[in-house]
């Protein structure tokens, strides 16, 4: 097969992916580390490489609002944000999912102020887990590009009609250069047909949209919305299979298991840190330890079945969280734990919180996590939520 590989950053890969999807309207507001994506898209529009319109909005709130407006007449839309910008959009995020507008967004995961930090963690998107969007977390630039294409197929599916957020770790992915294959436009056009929806205003069939509901019917609307997000699990699987058949790359739909077949102890993570965990898994495997990685790709809908399947087979599960729900535990852990609680066998669990505000998570730290999970197996360590590698004194 002829390949077309170029050396680009994660942000640029996302832009190339979006371009191939031919959105009608792009509306975004700059914020580090998302900026390169919107700069590249602006250049593509300027050069005439893209037919879409780029709207220079004055804020993220308007960016999501413009996307909703364009989507409400049947246009394909794209926006991108990060951190403070994503939070500024929050009202619109709920509005877009409730209105069932299949907007696709790139979010460059970044810490949330205060203290200010432009570097990466997952506190921005995870704090908006309940806003009704499908959330996927990618591991490298190629996945970022490919997921843009998959995202439109998933979001615009008639049974789903739900917006989708593609999350890329700030700097670690957005600003790191990799060789990325750019798919053929004709193949993308075949894979991703034009957006057709009954959920739009038109002069042939005028509609009143985005209405109010009474207590009598609000729950029913929300039930249907939840069903649609649950239904996307099947769609995600179908789309990934078809993507593999068309483009030759596969992302293992909801989760990817790495060396988990006979594993006793598994670390669960989202995003780019999975790459480091893989390296550590390989090393420890060589030393004879039965360890593995569960890369969670989709946080919403949540891969409950996949986590349960794993929990039935293993003895200990650790969860890395680059976030903290203050006063409790990491959000990925809370979700994983809920799934684990539904299996009958006992699994030792622990939560490792760190990598906040851009701090690197090292191989040594990950190796240490595996050792702590083994310590849990011989009862020399309690289950716990632990901030790892702290530089302040703790009284724990």
């Amino acid at each position, binding site marked *: 097969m002829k390949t077309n590989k170029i050396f680009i950053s994660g942000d640029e890969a996302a832009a190339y992916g979006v371009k191939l999807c031919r959105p*009608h*309207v792009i*509306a975004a507001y700059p914020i580090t580390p998302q900026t390169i994506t919107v700069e590249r898209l602006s250049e593509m529009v300027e050069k005439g490489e893209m*037919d*879409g*319109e780029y*709207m*220079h*909005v*004055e*804020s993220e*709130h*308007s*960016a*999501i*609002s*413009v*996307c*909703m*407006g*364009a*989507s*409400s*007449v*049947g*246009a394909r*839309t794209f926006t991108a944000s990060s951190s403070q910008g994503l939070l500024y959009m929050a*009202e*619109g995020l709920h*509005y877009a999912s409730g209105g069932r507008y299949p907007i696709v967004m790139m979010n460059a995961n970044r810490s949330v102020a205060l203290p200010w930090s432009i570097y990466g963690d997952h506190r921005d998107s995870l704090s908006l887990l309940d806003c009704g969007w499908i959330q996927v977390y990618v591991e490298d630039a190629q996945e970022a590009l490919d997921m843009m294409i998959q995202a439109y197929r998933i979001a615009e599916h008639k049974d789903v009609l739900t917006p989708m957020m593609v999350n890329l770790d700030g700097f670690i992915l957005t600003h790191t250069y990799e060789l990325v294959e750019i798919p053929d436009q004709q193949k993308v056009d075949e894979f991703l047909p034009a957006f057709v929806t009954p959920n739009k*205003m*038109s*002069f042939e069939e*005028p*509609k*009143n*949209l*985005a*209405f*109010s*509901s*009474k207590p009598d*019917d609000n729950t029913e609307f929300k039930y249907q919305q939840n069903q649609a997000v649950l239904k996307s699990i099947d769609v995600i699987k179908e789309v990934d299979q078809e993507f593999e058949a068309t483009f030759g790359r596969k992302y293992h739909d909801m989760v990817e298991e790495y060396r988990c077949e006979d594993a006793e102890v598994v670390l669960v993570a989202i995003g780019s840190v999975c790459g480091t965990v893989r390296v550590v898994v390989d090393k420890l495997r060589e030393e004879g330890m039965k360890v593995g990685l569960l890369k969670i790709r989709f946080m919403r809908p949540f891969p409950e079945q996949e986590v349960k399947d794993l929990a039935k087979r293993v003895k200990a599960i650790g969860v890395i969280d680059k976030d903290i729900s203050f006063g409790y535990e990491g959000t990925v852990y809370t979700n994983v734990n809920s799934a684990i609680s539904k299996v009958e066998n006992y699994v030792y669990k622990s939560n490792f919180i760190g990598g906040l505000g851009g701090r690197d998570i090292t191989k040594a730290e990950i190796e240490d996590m595996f050792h702590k999970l083994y310590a849990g197996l011989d009862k020399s360590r309690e289950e716990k939520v632990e901030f790892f590698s702290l530089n302040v004194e703790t009284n724990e």
Partner: protein
Amino acid sequence: MNKVLDIPRVNAKNMTDKEFFYGHKACAGCGGSIAVRLALKVLGERTYTALPAGCMSAVGFIFPQMAFNSNAIITTFPGAASMASGIAMGAKALGQKDFKTVVFAGDGGTADIGFQALSGMIDRNDDVLYICYDNEAYMNTGIQKSGLTPYGTQTTTTPAGKNLPGTLTHKKNLFEIIAAHDIAYAATASIGYPQDYLNKVNKAKHTKGASFIHVYASCPTGWGTPTETSVEIAKDAVDCGLIFLAEYEDGEFKLNRNPKEFASIPDYLKKQARFKHLSDQDIEIITEHRDKKWSRMRKHWL
């Protein structure tokens, strides 16, 4: 040059019998609903209407009873202008032609929370007509003060008492703030002067790019006025000079009505429960403010 002056005038005879806003739950005598109804008659079928949270969206879209007979959508409270921009651009990108996108937003939705998006919309010159129906308070949430609530108004967040006369600030100078964007067309209007309003909507309809109308729209519930006097009160406000009729076009301001003598301010105020408490001194402050404004307008806009 803006060619909008050549368009035929709208009047009761040549206006459509079709209704685009009916069966809604607005209070009897609601001035906002009159502003929406009349404008949609001028704009016609090929219109996308966007309304932020506020009375007009609250009374028009109660599922399953939809009150708009043409395309309409509720936006977030701060996002009316930006959603309308998206509609206009999305429809254009899909190849649609000969249509108008219109916003009907309250005074709060326009001069306060929605102002950033509105400023962006005008700055980009998006093809949207933005109509602010001004009932001088946040009515939908129960009559709270907005940036367009005039001095002395009693609202639920500016109660008048021994220490305060109600609202302490004057109305934001919205029309001139909008004009300062160098917008292609902006106007003020009142539902008390419907013919003037209709023709301003018609001008805006034929303006390419962003246009803006600030229409004074009485609210019997929030103002404490009899429901049958809504149009009359909106006319009184213009006649006493507290509300003015003007246009901004091709970079020039124009005063449409310049009465030799103003009708009485106290007569206008005393008809409304929201002003009942005002002292002579308060009325003096209001009158002075009016006179200053008019001397400025007469000097520069005639």
